[in-house]
């Protein structure tokens, strides 16, 4: 059974979002997502400084099985990327909510946070999906 920490928010694209304050959020993919993908072997990180709308493709994770796009769960500017993933993409498998974080954005519209799911809603979403 995959983990879904209660303090995070979740998108339908299987990303988790943690608020860090000052309208900055940290983004990664969920435990469920990494389990579905299998061993990750490559990550293409978002471009620092790029300002993107919610829903835009911004990164790619590739597992032994397949490539998956990462979409912006919210609109904003990319302010940090997890460079260590270039050499150790397996961090996403080992610690999806910790060392496996992918990038941070500065929100352009913090009201968009309302559109995300909480842990219970995400669990229900995953259950419906499978």
């Amino acid at each position, binding site marked *: 059974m995959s983990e879904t920490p209660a303090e995070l928010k979740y998108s339908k694209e299987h990303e988790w979002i943690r608020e860090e304050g000052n309208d900055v959020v940290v983004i990664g993919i969920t435990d469920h997502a990494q389990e579905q993908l*299998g061993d990750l*072997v490559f990550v293409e990180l978002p471009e620092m400084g790029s300002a993107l709308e919610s829903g835009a493709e911004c990164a790619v994770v590739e597992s*032994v*099985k397949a*490539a998956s796009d990462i979409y912006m769960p919210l609109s904003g500017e990319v302010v940090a990327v997890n460079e260590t993933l270039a050499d150790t993409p397996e961090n996403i498998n080992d610690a999806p909510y910790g060392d496996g974080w992918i990038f941070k954005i500065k929100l352009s519209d913090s009201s968009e946070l309302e559109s995300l799911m909480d842990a219970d809603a995400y669990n229900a979403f995953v259950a419906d999906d499978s």
Partner: protein
Amino acid sequence: MGGRMVPFGGWDMPLHYGSQLDEHHYVRRDAGMFDVSHMAVIDLSGENCRVMLQQLLANDVARLKVPGKALYSCMLNEAGGVIDDLIVYLRDGGAYRLVVNAGTAEKDLAWIQPLADTYDVTLTHRSDLAMIAAQGPNARQKCLPLLPASQQQAAEALKLFYADDGEWFIAYTGYTGEPGFEIMLPQEQAVALWQALNEAGIKPCGLGARDTLRLEAGMNLYGQDMDESVSPLEAGLNWTIAWQPESRDFIGRQALESQRERGGLRRFVGIMLTGRGILRSHQKIYMGEELVGETTSGGFAPTLQESVALARVDGNIGECCEVEIRGKRVAAKVVKPPFARNGQRCIK
């Protein structure tokens, strides 16, 4: 065993039991096993088996001089396309055993049956048999004590591409580029053997690792690297065609001969990515602005920690190329497979 199951060739198969990368490494470094009972075993008996197989297969079963010897071959259609690739074993009394792919088994049987009727050869689809492949540098040693006592000595002495045909059919063959056994045994004994092998330290591995292992070993996958529309001459399988004696008129021979005379055949090569990304099947290959081919299988090669592919390309491709990955051109080099075998990388 906690396997993640996926449909494959009409069977539910484990993709992996945990980490596909770990499973890959068990096989390259120690010992892993695969349940390959989906593969179809077809036994042939009758006086004319050999003559029939010499017509049916592009490789020549006359090369099988002693019972237990194995031969890899393509079975072609009249146009020279590959209906299937298989292993054929000679058995006692001039009988033969074919091991064919799961997804093609029905088609293969339908193709062989009329010829078998003509030659009065009996075909038996041995769906009563299971098959377990134990592979890796330590696989044979770990297996030996678990084999029937009457076969242990013979199994230990087996050379590559030979089988011991006794209570079980134990072959020194595989699809990983590592030494090991492929064991065919009655289905009802398979679970006990699997559990015993597991206790002996041979780790269960899924289809995912099987695919990366065979890709690294430069072995073709039917349906991906070749199929009925592809000539073995454009799939790196020239070595499996027995052109001599010229009098042997195997199915597809005429087509292959005209292809050879016509020339301009595409080459089947290895590709290694030098830029960043992961190669997959069906990616386009460019030299400058010219489209020169396509990958047929690709992925991350865990032994090399690099991305590799098999590809069909124009005959005049150079050493460097670019592969289009998700809309971007990424630098790559052209190499001769295999990429890794026997625990080590083969490409400098």
